[in-house]
């Protein structure tokens, strides 16, 4: 029996993984080959998807990107024995893109069958939870604090402090909530982990629950991720049956249950207080802080809220100790981050590396430059609210503090690459437009500021009172940054002003035509 791996990750499916799996099954049957197909997660080399792997004595051998047309040829070429082929890449784990990573959170993703608990256990899964079940809650908090883990959702707040706050509060009811509303363009790490290694998230949340004293948790997944929702619901059911969730987990005194809630296409629900409102069945409007959600969160109760990546980092921290994790990284940015290289990129995918790697290394060494073959002009780092970085800043190490020094943010490590055809005035306009579409409407700087922002940029593009409007735009950005209630309005000035400062020539072009100029007046 030969084991063949064909990913079931949504990105792999989007380029035909299901069809390829079916074709391999058909072809194997026709040729009387005894083949077992495992639908694994993605290895994160998305430029090679569908990446088919064959298990051989030497290890897993990679072929990709495979289309249904290639399947017969692969059989002819002896891929079941791991023989070389035009689509072959040799041993998967020797591919430089993969080999040179530091995979802690994504250690299992793409390797295991995402829904097999046996597979998960065999690859170190639940080791962290087993330890946690034996520990005092405060010692779990200490371990996480020691690791230096900061929220991987973007804001970078120390996770240990959050957990300690909830731990210290008395209360009959507390919650754990996972923010899986990964709405930022250029990010897919959460999705990949939920689909490729769901138990890792479940384990991390369960450890958080024990640390904080919660018995109930929610994963808030965006509706754009139906595959993640299905996998998580299935995984939770299986985990419950195997007593890794539910009452008295593995015979311990701890009980914890987990539920999936689906969003409905509102970017703002990635903001933690909006997410809480949405889980409660309300409009996703941000709440005033204080009180912080750790004190009054879901249904008014103390709540540990973290991003998927933060929770998923916890199992290995517990399994191998806080120091082990802390030893990766630089400065006050400890551990690893799942960098995501996207947009106009030749070799797009996920690269988990310790903090300190540079934009240039990610875009050029891993990414191989643009897909169009043209020079890279700008990289937006950290989502639609992150700065556009010009080439002059490509060598700044990826580190929360170093990036802040150059008016940018690492955020969740998503990189969107643009080639030299990009019009940065248009991108700045889009940042404002996006804010008008997605603002929850609670505060004026965000709701009205963004609308006015689009108009001001339109006038700049149309060369109507350009100098005056440039000053006005800057003024408006200051107001939005200082006056908005949450990151939506507060950070929209980041992409806008980074475009103005980094690419001023794009705001000085001749007006497209007279008609537009008149219309903008």
């Amino acid at each position, binding site marked *: 029996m030969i084991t063949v791996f064909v990913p079931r990750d949504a990105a792999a*499916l989007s380029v035909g993984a299901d069809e390829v799996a079916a074709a391999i099954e058909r072809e194997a049957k026709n040729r009387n080959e005894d083949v077992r197909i495992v639908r694994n997660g993605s290895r994160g080399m*998305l430029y090679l998807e569908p990446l088919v792997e064959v298990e051989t004595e030497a290890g897993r051998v990679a072929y990709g990107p495979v289309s249904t047309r290639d399947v017969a040829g692969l059989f002819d070429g002896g891929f079941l024995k791991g023989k070389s082929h035009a689509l072959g890449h040799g041993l998967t784990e020797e591919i430089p893109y993969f080999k040179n990573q530091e995979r802690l959170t994504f250690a299992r993703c793409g390797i295991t069958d995402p829904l097999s608990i046996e597979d998960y256990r065999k690859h170190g899964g639940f080791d962290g939870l087993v330890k946690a079940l034996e520990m005092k809650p405060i010692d779990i908090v200490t371990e996480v604090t020691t690791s230096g883990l900061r929220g991987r959702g973007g804001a970078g707040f120390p996770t240990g402090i959050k957990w300690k706050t909830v731990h210290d509060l008395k209360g009959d009811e507390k919650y754990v909530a996972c923010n899986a509303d990964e*709405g930022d*363009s250029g990010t897919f790490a959460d*999705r990949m982990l939920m689909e490729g290694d769901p138990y890792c998230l479940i384990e991390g949340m369960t450890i958080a629950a024990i640390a904080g004293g919660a018995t109930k948790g929610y994963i808030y997944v965006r509706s754009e991720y139906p595959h993640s929702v299905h996998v998580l619901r299935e995984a939770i059911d299986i985990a419950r049956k195997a007593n890794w969730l539910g009452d008295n987990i593995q015979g311990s005194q701890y009980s914890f249950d987990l539920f999936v809630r689906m969003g409905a296409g509102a970017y703002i629900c990635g903001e933690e207080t909006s997410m809480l409102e949405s889980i409660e069945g309300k409009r996703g409007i941000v709440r005033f802080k204080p009180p912080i959600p750790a004190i009054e969160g879901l249904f008014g109760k103390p709540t540990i809220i973290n991003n998927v990546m933060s929770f998923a980092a916890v199992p290995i921290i517990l399994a191998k100790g806080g120091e082990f994790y802390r030893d990766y990284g630089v400065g006050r940015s400890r551990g690893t981050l799942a960098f*995501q290289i*996207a947009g106009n990129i030749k070799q*797009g995918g996920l690269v988990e590396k310790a903090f300190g790697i540079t934009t240039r290394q990610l875009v050029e060494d891993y990414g191989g430059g643009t897909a169009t073959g043209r020079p890279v002009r700008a990289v937006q780092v950290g989502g639609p609210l992150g700065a556009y970085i010009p080439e002059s800043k490509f060598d700044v190490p990826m580190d929360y503090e170093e990036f802040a020094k150059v008016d940018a943010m690492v955020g969740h490590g998503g990189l*969107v690459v643009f080639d030299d055809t990009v019009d940065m005035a248009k*991108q700045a306009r889009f940042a404002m437009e996006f804010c008008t579409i997605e603002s929850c409407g609670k505060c004026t700087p965000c709701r009205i500021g963004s609308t006015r922002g689009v108009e001001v940029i339109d006038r700049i593009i149309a060369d109507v009172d350009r100098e005056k409007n440039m000053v006005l735009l800057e003024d408006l950005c200051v107001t939005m940054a200082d006056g908005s209630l949450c990151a939506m309005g507060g950070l929209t000035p980041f992409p806008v002003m980074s475009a103005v400062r980094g690419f001023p020539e794009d705001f000085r072009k001749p007006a497209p035509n007279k008609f537009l100029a008149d219309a903008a007046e």
Partner: protein
Amino acid sequence: MAKVGKKQKGPRREEPAALTPVEIAAVAVCARHGNKPDELLEIFHELQHELGYVPDAALPPIAQALNRSRAEIYGVLTFYHEFHRHPVGRNVVKICRAEACQAMGTDELCRHAEHSLNVPLGGTTADGSVTIEQVFCLGNCALSPAVMVGEKLYGKVDSQRFDEIIAGLEKEAAE
């Protein structure tokens, strides 16, 4: 319109009117969710899955079942981009317009979609087959531009692949 003073035929006003199919569906979905107000989004999702959209007529019975005001129910429904208040095409085709897809030409893809289907983004084709919508990020940013039809995700979609996807839908519908 009945004339004032003229006695109306049919059931008298004080008799409880029979529930419409929409109301029956709404009541049933709420009951499946234990009439819990915090499951309102799930209720909308399920109703939209059943009916294709969430009709206004469903709101009063939902409000009653969850013991919330109609204004609150309406407010929630209209806050979220995902929910439709009016009938949509048999296939909803979502085209990602976020930055990663912009970097790979989603603007041209949107223009192509609008031209070839002869509807603007947000519109439904004359035969009721396809509604095209803009969305912001389908999580397929390394294989952009991305498109989603129902729950099926497509990567690296250019104009030609878009046409093939649409042709595939027509074919499925015909079968």
